[in-house]
Every structure is written in C-alpha cells, then in structure tokens.
C-alpha cells in the first residue's frame, strides 16, 4: 500500500508492524511525532503494546532495560539533548546486550540552542556499543526498523541498534512511502525469544559486578558481536529484499563510482541532493562518485577500502564535528586506510550544522575540491559553508 504520509507516521507504522511489547519515550523535537503516533495507536487499541510514560529520556531507556531483561521487545526514540541524557543508559543497554531498537531523529546539540538537523548527537554516541544505521530517506528509515530488530535480536549479535534519520528533513517531510505489510513483517521478523530472561522461577543475576579479571572479556564479546554484525547487516538487507523487494545496499551503497576520479563519502539524507549534484558534475565531465555509509557502527572498513580503492581523492561531507579535531566519519575513514598503504588524499567537510541547508552548489564546491585534492589537499578539514562575513 502506497501512501503519502509524514516521515514520523511512517516510522510509527513500521514500529507497529514489528509488534513491540513495550514502548517508552519522552517527547523532544523533532522526534515527538513518532512517539505521539505510537501512543495514539496504543490508546486506540491498534497496537497491543504497553506505552510507559516517563519523566525523562534517562527514565525512558532505563524502563526499557527492565522490559528487555524480561524478554519484551522494546522500542524508544529520541534526539539531541534527549540522547545525551540517555548517555549512561546507552552503555548499560549495550553492555547488558539488550536488543533494544531506537530511532534517533538527528538534531544538533546545544548550546547554542537549536532544534534543527545535524548528526552531532548520534555521531557523538558512536563509542557506546550500539549499532548505528543511517537512512537516506523515509522509506529506508521505515524499512530499517524491522531489519534493526532482526539484527539486534540475532543470538550472535544481541546488540542494541539506533536507526538514525535526519530530524525534520526526514521526520517531518511528507512523501510517498510503501507501507510495510504486518503479516510479511511477521514472516521476516520472528518473535523475540531470548535464552535468558528475568524470571522468578529461574533466577539469574543480570548486570553483575565485573572486576578487572573479567571486564576486558565482556568488552571483547561486544566488539566480537559488532564484527559479526558486519556480515549480518548485509544478509538481513538481502533477506529484506527477498520479502519486500526493496534494497539499499548492505553496509554501504555506491552511486556513479564506476570510472570516478574522486569520491564523496557521507551518511544520511544529504545523499539525495548529492546524487543530483553528481549528475550535473558528470554532465560537465567531472567524474565524482558517491559512497553512502549505511552502517557507521560497526564501521565497514573492508567495504569502504574496496569501494574507494580506484579513486585518486576522497571528500567526506558530514553533519558533525569532533570539536578540537576533525569530524567523526573523516577520522574513521582515514584510520581505515592508514595500514593499507593507500595514500589517497582524504579531505573532510563539516556541513549542514544546526539545520543549514546543504545545496547543490555546496556539494559541487566539495566535489571540485575533492578533484583538486588529487594533487595534494589544500586543507585537510574545513567548514564547508562558513559565513566569514558574520564573524
């Protein structure tokens, strides 16, 4: 069924099809409509889940630690300062290996106060042990939701997943989406049956103290699960394609990479604009391709090396900055190449901060700089659309 709906409604619809047992969330712009719609679905009896209303994001995710430990399929959604307030719990969830799925409606981190889109919030939480998948458009964010549960609940993975979608740009846009069919989702996503749960009849301790003699091994197991997820993300994307007919690439996707001289690497909704900009650049004889990062954690080192091995230079466009260094994706990508002997120049651009539009012109500027960087980069890292006149 194809319908024109708001992005947030589409996500709520996708979550509903996954049959969550427990939802707990605290409203925060631009995530509010997702949980508002879910709350309505529960109130109307359309969705047989319990919606736990709480006083904060910290409590929302903490409530899900309890429900997930009981073996309930659990869902939350947040953004920006809300995600920051969850920070401590993010580590608890991943360390306790709870397969919670959370939609992050990416938004800038204050101060200064700003409610618009960038990806500082989730990129800043990249080390928390959660898997992070980034959607290009509403349909992909919707389709990633059952894929995220399937991945998270896999007995070899048991790791929480953030489905990241750009706030406003995707959460508030009305666009035609193909609705998920509930029965098909049931067929794709088996019921959640964890091996160990909190059950008075079979007592276990969850979250026991780990001293220096065991802590390293717990971390190792998390790292191992993320490594295993590299393969599963690909497999699950293909399984989704078999059931639903839609495919967006596995860990990464590429566009116009065949015969490209330079490449742009990015994540999220800016990809649509980049594709248009690249079409125009190719028409002008400028061969710039695109690599879209779908999985940021686990970081697809091998897939990126393989896809970028033939270009002479690379530009990263991302909506975050690691204040005091470059930006997340840029440094991660450089690190992926360092030991391979590949000396392809990589330049990083921070753009679209706090909701500033990234235009075709901006992307072409980055593309031109990428092509020029083949002779040696002019600057390693810069703010792409800096308004020097107001400084």
């Amino acid at each position, binding site marked *: 069924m194809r319908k024109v709906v708001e992005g947030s409604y589409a996500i709520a619809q996708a979550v509903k099809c996954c049959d969550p047992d427990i939802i707990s969330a605290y409203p925060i712009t631009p995530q509010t409509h997702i949980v508002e719609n879910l709350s309505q679905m529960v109130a109307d009896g359309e969705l047989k889940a319990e919606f736990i209303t709480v006083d904060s994001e910290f409590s929302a995710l903490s409530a899900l630690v309890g429900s997930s430990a009981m073996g309930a399929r659990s869902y939350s959604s947040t953004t920006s300062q809300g995600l920051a307030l969850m920070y401590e719990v993010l580590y608890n969830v991943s360390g*306790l290996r709870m397969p919670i799925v959370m939609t992050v409606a990416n938004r800038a981190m204050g101060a200064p106060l700003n409610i618009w889109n960038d990806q500082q919030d989730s990129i800043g939480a990249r080390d928390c042990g959660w898997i992070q998948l980034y959607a290009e458009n509403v349909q992909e964010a919707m389709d990633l939701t059952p894929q995220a549960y399937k991945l998270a609940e896999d007995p070899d993975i048991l790791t929480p997943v953030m489905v990241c979608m750009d706030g406003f740009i995707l959460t508030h846009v009305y666009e035609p989406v193909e609705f998920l069919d509930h029965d098909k989702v049931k067929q794709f996503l088996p019921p959640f049956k964890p091996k160990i749960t909190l059950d008075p009849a079979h007592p276990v301790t969850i979250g026991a103290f780990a001293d220096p003699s065991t802590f390293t091994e717990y971390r190792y197991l*998390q790292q191992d699960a993320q490594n295993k997820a590299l393969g599963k993300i690909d497999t699950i994307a293909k399984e989704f394609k078999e059931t639903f007919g839609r495919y967006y690439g596995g860990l990464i996707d590429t566009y116009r990479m065949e015969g490209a001289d330079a490449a742009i690497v990015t994540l999220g909704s800016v990809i649509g604009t980049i594709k248009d900009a690249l079409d125009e650049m190719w028409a002008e004889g400028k061969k710039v391709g695109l690599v879209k990062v779908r999985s940021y954690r686990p970081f697809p080192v091998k897939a990126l090396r393989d896809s970028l091995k033939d270009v002479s230079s690379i530009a990263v466009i991302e909506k975050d900055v690691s204040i005091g260094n470059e930006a997340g994706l840029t440094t991660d990508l450089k690190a992926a190449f360092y030991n391979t002997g590949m000396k392809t120049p990589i330049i990083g651009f921070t753009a679209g901060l706090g909701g500033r539009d990234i235009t075709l012109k901006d992307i072409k500027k980055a593309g031109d700089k990428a092509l020029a960087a083949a002779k040696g980069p002019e600057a390693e890292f810069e703010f792409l659309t800096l308004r020097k006149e107001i400084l």
Partner: protein
Amino acid sequence: MLKVIAGGYVEPGSTQVTKTGAWRTFVPVVDQKRCSKCSLCEIYCPEGCIRMVEGLFIPDLDYCKGCSICAHECPRKAITMVLEEK
C-alpha cells in the same frame, strides 16, 4: 572460575565467586583481649564483613575494603589498621 557470558548474565550469588577485597591497602587487626564484644564494628561496617565467629569478631578479608570505619568506631580502640603487604 566465573565464566563470562555476553551481557553478564550469571547465576545468583555471583559475589561468592567474585571477591571484592583485592583493592584494600590497610587491613583491620583485632586485639581480641581489648574487645568487649559490643558489636559496633559489625553494625557500622558498610560491607557487612565483620561479624562474630565462635565468640570473636573476625573481619572477612575476602570482602573487606580496608575503609577503617570499624577501627574508627571501636570505643575500646581494639582494632588497628595495618598496611597490608601483598
């Protein structure tokens, strides 16, 4: 030996296996002749690891963190904290 399972799920009573006294620097030594068996050390110990064993107050060194509260509270100064050599 405690086996590590993803997520830290363990059988109940895991602290019986995981000893927590390893980071102690000072160890309480009870002078049993001075002890009047008032049990204030047992009442004040935040870890619950000094109690009467066969008529004498004996610290459980598997869990004692060496915080010295027992020595501080003892009205007869029967407990001294001694630097533990490991």
